[in-house]
C-alpha cells in the first residue's frame, strides 16, 4: 500500500502502477463539471486559480450538504469522462492526481504520460463509506455552484486504486479482459 501526501511530486506518481492501492492523507480539492469549466475559463483569461494546481489532487465529487456535526455529507466519485475536455489543461499545469470513476479519453491519458499525473479510481456509490475518510471540508471557490463548488478537503487514509499510470497502463482494460467470456 502506497501513501500519497499532497502536494505530490512528479517522481512519486511516476513510481505508481495501474492496480496499486493507494491511501491519500492530507489536502485534496473537489471539482466537477461546472467548476472545471470555470477553472479553464480562468486559465484562458490568464487569471489565478483558486488553489495551486501544481502537485495537487482533484477529487471529482459533488457531496451532499454537511449535516450538523459532520465535516461533509455523502462523498463518492462522479463519472470522470465529463471532465475530459478540461483535464489536460490542468495536467499541464502540474496536476498530479485525479480521483473519479469510469474510463478517460485518449487525450487525458496522453497528457498524464507527458506531464506525470495518475488517474485514481474510488468506489462509485459508496459515498457514506468514503465520507468517513474526510476530516474537514471548506468551500474555497465558486460558492454559488452549491454542490459543484470547489472544496478543500482534509482526508485521512482515503482509499483509491491506480487506474491509469504514467506508463500508459489502464486497469479497467486489463482487468475486464481477464473476465470477459466470448
Amino acid at each position: 500500500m502506497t501513501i500519497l501526501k499532497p502536494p505530490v511530486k512528479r517522481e512519486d506518481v511516476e513510481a505508481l502502477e495501474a492496480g496499486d492501492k493507494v491511501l491519500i492523507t492530507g489536502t485534496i480539492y473537489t471539482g466537477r463539471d461546472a467548476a472545471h469549466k470555470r477553472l479553464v475559463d480562468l486559465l484562458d483569461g490568464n487569471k489565478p486559480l483558486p488553489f495551486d494546481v501544481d502537485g495537487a489532487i482533484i477529487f471529482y465529487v459533488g457531496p451532499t450538504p454537511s449535516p450538523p456535526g459532520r465535516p461533509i455529507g455523502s462523498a463518492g466519485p462522479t463519472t470522470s469522462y465529463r471532465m475530459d475536455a478540461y483535464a489536460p489543461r490542468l495536467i499541464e499545469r502540474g496536476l498530479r492526481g485525479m480521483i473519479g470513476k469510469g474510463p478517460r479519453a485518449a487525450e487525458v491519458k496522453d497528457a498524464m504520460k507527458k506531464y506525470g499525473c495518475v488517474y485514481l479510481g474510488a468506489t462509485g456509490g459508496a459515498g457514506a463509506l468514503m465520507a468517513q475518510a474526510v476530516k474537514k471540508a471548506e468551500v474555497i471557490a465558486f460558492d454559488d455552484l452549491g454542490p459543484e463548488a470547489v472544496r478543500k478537503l482534509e482526508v485521512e487514509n482515503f482509499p483509491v486504486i491506480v487506474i491509469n499510470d504514467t506508463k500508459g497502463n489502464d486497469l479497467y482494460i486489463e482487468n475486464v479482459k481477464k473476465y470477459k467470456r466470448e
Partner: protein
Amino acid sequence: MRSIPYNTIKEKVKAAIMEAAFIAGEDLMAGFKRALEQEESPLGKEILNQLIENAEIARKERIPLCQDTGLAVFFVEMGDEVKVEGGLLPDALNEATKEAYGEAYLRKSACNPFTRKNTGDNTPAIIHYDIVKGDKLHITFCAKGGGSENMSRVTMLTPSDGKKGIEDFVVQRVWEAEANPCPPVIVGVGIGGTFERAALIAKKALLEPIGKKNPDPELAEMEERILKRINNLGIGPGGLGGRITALDVHVKMEPCHIASLPLAVNINCHSSRHAEIDF
C-alpha cells in the same frame, strides 16, 4: 369519492424520500450478497463488500448511500374514485421533494440545461400519471442518479431486427457504458409503444424488485439470456473486472406500430433507491 388531504400526501411522500436516501432495500442487499457468492474476482469481491459496508453506514449514521441523491421521479397510480383535497397532487409531490431534500441534507441536482444554474431545491420533480380503477392512490418514488441515466439510450429498431437485435443492442449498451454507471447495474428494458413510451416503460422496469422473475415466460427467458450475456462481459463490480456486471435485467413490453420496434435501455446504478407509498 374518497378524499385524501394534500398535507397527508406531502408528509408521507417526504418521509419516503428521506428513507430511500439512507436505507438500501432488502432486495438490493440480497442482490449484493448473491453477487458476492458468485463473484470470482478478488477486487470485485472487495468492491461488493464495500457496498455492503456503505449501506450499513448509511442506515446507521443516516448519511445518503450515494452523494448523487438523484432527480426525484414519481409514478402515480390514481384511482378514479380518489381526489386530493386542499391542493394539486403535483404541488404536493414537488413540495415533498423540496422539503425532504432540504431537511435531510440531500444533494440538489436539478439545474438549468444551458446556464447549469442549480434550481436550489431539487425541483421540478419528474411525475408520471396513470389513472386506474378504485379509490386508492399509489405513488412510487425513485431517486434517479445522473451517472447511470447518462448511459441510457432509446433506439428505433426495425421489425426485422427481432429479439436478437433487441438483445444485442442491450448488451452492447452495457458494454459501452463500461465502469461509468457504477456496476453492478440494474438494466431496465422497454420494448414497444412509441419513442417516449419505450423509455417510460424501461424506467418502470427498473422499479421491479431485484431477483424477481418476469411473469411472462417469454420475457423471463429474454431477461435471463440478456443477464447471462452481460455478466460474460467481464466489466465486474466497479468496472474493475469480474463476473457480476449486472444484478438483474427487467423487461417490459407493449404493442407498437406495425412499422416500428422501439427499444429503450434505462440503466440504474447499484444504488437503486425507490419507495412505495400507499394511500
